[in-house]
C-alpha cells in the first residue's frame, strides 16, 4: 500500500517536471531471485523510467542494469547522443554482471537503437544486444515468448494516458511561471490564467487524434495555432455575450493571453508527441533512403523501427519502406543496418551517410551538415 502511494506520488512529481532530467543511481539491480541463466535487462538512469521498469518486471527473476543517460529518458537520450554504446559497455563491464551470469545476451529497450550501436558492443565486449519491447509493460510477455516481439511491441503510440502526461508536463511549468510573474503584478489574474493554461493544454493534447492528420499538411505549424486562436476568440466572445456583457478590454487582454499560451504550446507540438518528428529541427525534412543494392533483407531496420515503416521480404532478401509517411526520422534503422544500406537524404538531394548519423546521432541542430 505504502509502495503504491509512493509510486503514484513520484509519478505525479515526474510528470509535472517532465521537461527536466532526473538522474538516479546507475549499476546493477537484482530482481527477485536470479540465477546464472536469468535474463539481463538494461535501461537508462532517468528516475521515472527505472521506477516504471522495476514495477513492470516485479515478480520476475533477473538482473536490471541501469546505465547512464544523464537522467534523460531512453529515446531522447539515445537520439541526443546522451545514451550510447559507451554507456551500455560501461554498465556491462563495471557492474560485475559478467561474473553473475553464464550467457552474454543483454536486453535493451528498442528505443535506444538510434544511439546505441549493437555491433560495437558485440565487438568490444562479446555481449549480444537483443532489442526488447518499446514499452516496459511488454517485458514479461517478451521474456515468456523466448525474447521475440509481437509486432505491436515494436510500435510507439500516443494513447490518452500519454497525452494527458504531456498536457500536464507543459501546463505545470507554464502555470508556475505565470503565477510567479502575475502574483506581484496582478493577483486576480493568476487563477483564471492557470485555468486557461490547463484548459488549453488539455484540449490540445487530448484531442490530438482528431486533428493529427492535418499537421502533415504544409504550413500546418502556422495554420494550426491561428485556427485554434480563432476558435478560442470565438469562445471568449460567446462567453462575454452570455455572461458579463461584451467588453473590448477584456477580449483584448484575454485574447492576447490565450495567443501567448497557444504559441508556447504549439511551438513544438509535433515534437511533444512520439508519433511525429519535431517541427523545429531540420531533420524533419530528411527522408530515409534505402539502397537496394546493399540491402540483404536481414530485417534489422524493421526490428528497431518504432513506426513500422519497413516491410522485409526474406525470401527475396530485400526490404522496402512502404509506410515511409509514418517515419519520425529517429535514425534507428540507419544506425543499426550492418550493411550501411540506409541513409538520410535531404530535400535538396544531399545524402547523410550512416557513419555520420552514427557519430552524431540527432545531436546536431544542423551540425551534421556543417564541418567544424
Amino acid at each position, binding site marked *: 500500500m505504502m509502495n503504491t502511494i509512493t509510486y503514484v506520488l513520484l509519478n505525479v512529481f515526474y510528470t509535472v517536471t517532465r521537461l527536466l532530467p532526473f538522474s538516479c543511481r546507475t549499476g546493477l539491480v537484482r530482481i527477485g531471485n536470479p540465477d546464472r541463466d536469468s535474463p539481463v535487462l538494461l535501461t537508462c538512469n532517468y528516475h521515472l523510467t527505472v521506477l516504471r521498469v522495476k514495477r513492470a518486471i516485479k515478480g520476475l527473476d533477473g538482473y536490471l542494469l541501469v546505465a547512464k543517460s544523464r537522467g534523460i529518458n531512453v529515446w531522447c537520450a539515445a537520439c541526443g547522443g*546522451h545514451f550510447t554504446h559507451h554507456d551500455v559497455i560501461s554498465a556491462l563491464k563495471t557492474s560485475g554482471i559478467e561474473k553473475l551470469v553464464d550467457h552474454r545476451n543483454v536486453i535493451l529497450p528498442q528505443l535506444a537503437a538510434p544511439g546505441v550501436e549493437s555491433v560495437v558492443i558485440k565487438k568490444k565486449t562479446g555481449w549480444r544486444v537483443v532489442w526488447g519491447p518499446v514499452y516496459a509493460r511488454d517485458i514479461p510477455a517478451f521474456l515468456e515468448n523466448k525474447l521475440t516481439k509481437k509486432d505491436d511491441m515494436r510500435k510507439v503510440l500516443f494513447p490518452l494516458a500519454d497525452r494527458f502526461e504531456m498536457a500536464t508536463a507543459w501546463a505545470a511549468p507554464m502555470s508556475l511561471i505565470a503565477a510567479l510573474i502575475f502574483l506581484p503584478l496582478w493577483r486576480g489574474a493568476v487563477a483564471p490564467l492557470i485555468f486557461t493554461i490547463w484548459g488549453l493544454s488539455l484540449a490540445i493534447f487530448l484531442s490530438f487524434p482528431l486533428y493529427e492528420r492535418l499537421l502533415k499538411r504544409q504550413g500546418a505549424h502556422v495554420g494550426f495555432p491561428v485556427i485554434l486562436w480563432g476558435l478560442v476568440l470565438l469562445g471568449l466572445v460567446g462567453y462575454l455575450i452570455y455572461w458579463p456583457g461584451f467588453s473590448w478590454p477584456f477580449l483584448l487582454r484575454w485574447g492576447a493571453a490565450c495567443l501567448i499560451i497557444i504559441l508556447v504550446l504549439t511551438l513544438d507540438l509535433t515534437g511533444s508527441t512520439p508519433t511525429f518528428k519535431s517541427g523545429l529541427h531540420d531533420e524533419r525534412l530528411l527522408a530515409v533512403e534505402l539502397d537496394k543494392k546493399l540491402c540483404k533483407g536481414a530485417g534489422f531496420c524493421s526490428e528497431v523501427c518504432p513506426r513500422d515503416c519497413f516491410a522485409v521480404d526474406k525470401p527475396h532478401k530485400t526490404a522496402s519502406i512502404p509506410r515511409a509517411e509514418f517515419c519520425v526520422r529517429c535514425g534507428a534503422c540507419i544506425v543499426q543496418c550492418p550493411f550501411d544500406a540506409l541513409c538520410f537524404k535531404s530535400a535538396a538531394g544531399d545524402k547523410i551517410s550512416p557513419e555520420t548519423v552514427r557519430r552524431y546521432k540527432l545531436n546536431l541542430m544542423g551540425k551534421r551538415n556543417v564541418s*567544424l
Partner: protein
Amino acid sequence: MSTYILMKILESAPSRYDRGIGILTLGALDGSYDRMVSPIQQGDRVLDIGCGTGALTIRAARKGASLVGIDVNPGMLDIAKKRTEESGLGDRVTYREMGVAELGSEPDGGYDAIMSGLCFSELSEDELGFVLNEARRILRPGGRLLVADEMKPEGIIMRTLHLLVRIPLVVITYLLTQTTTRAVSGLPDKVREAGFVVTSVKHSRLGSFMELSAQNPSRQT
C-alpha cells in the same frame, strides 16, 4: 519526439563546454593543469582519460610526449582534434572515441603516465573502481597517475560549507555545460586501494578541488 527547449540546450553543449568551465573555475583550472603536466617528459607515452576538448592533452603534447586522448563525446573530440591540429601537434596525439570501460584493449604497461582532468567526477563508483584498476594495469612500473578533480572535502564543517557553495554551482554547471558532476569522495584511499603509492595531494582552499599524483610501484601481481 523530444521537447525542444531542453534538447536545444543539451545539443549545443560541447561548443560551450570550455567557456562554461572557464567561468566556473574562474580560470584556476589553467594553473592546475600546468602543474599537472609538469612531471611529463619528452618521449613519454601518456593517456588522457576523458580528454574532452583537449585542454590537458595539448599541454602534455607540448612537452614532447606522445598522447592518446579518450572521450565518449564525439563533439568534444572534434574540437580537441581541431585544436591539436592548429597547435601543430597532430602527429603526436591520437584521439579515440572510447569510454573508461573500454580500456581492456590497451596492453599491459603501455603508458608512462595517465592523466585525468575533471573526468572522475563524472564517473559512477563502479566506473571509478574499474578505471583505477585498469590504470594500474596499463601503466608501466614506476609510471604516474595524475588526477585533478572536484572532491568532497574532509571534515563536517568543510563539508557543510562545501555543500552550500556547491548547490548553486551545480545549477550553474548544468546551465553552462549541461554536465552534472558528483564530487569524488576519498579519492586518495581509492587510489591506494587499487595498489598505487600516492606521492602528493594538493587541495584548493575550500578543499573541494584536488590535484593528486600517484605512482605505480611495480608490475601487478
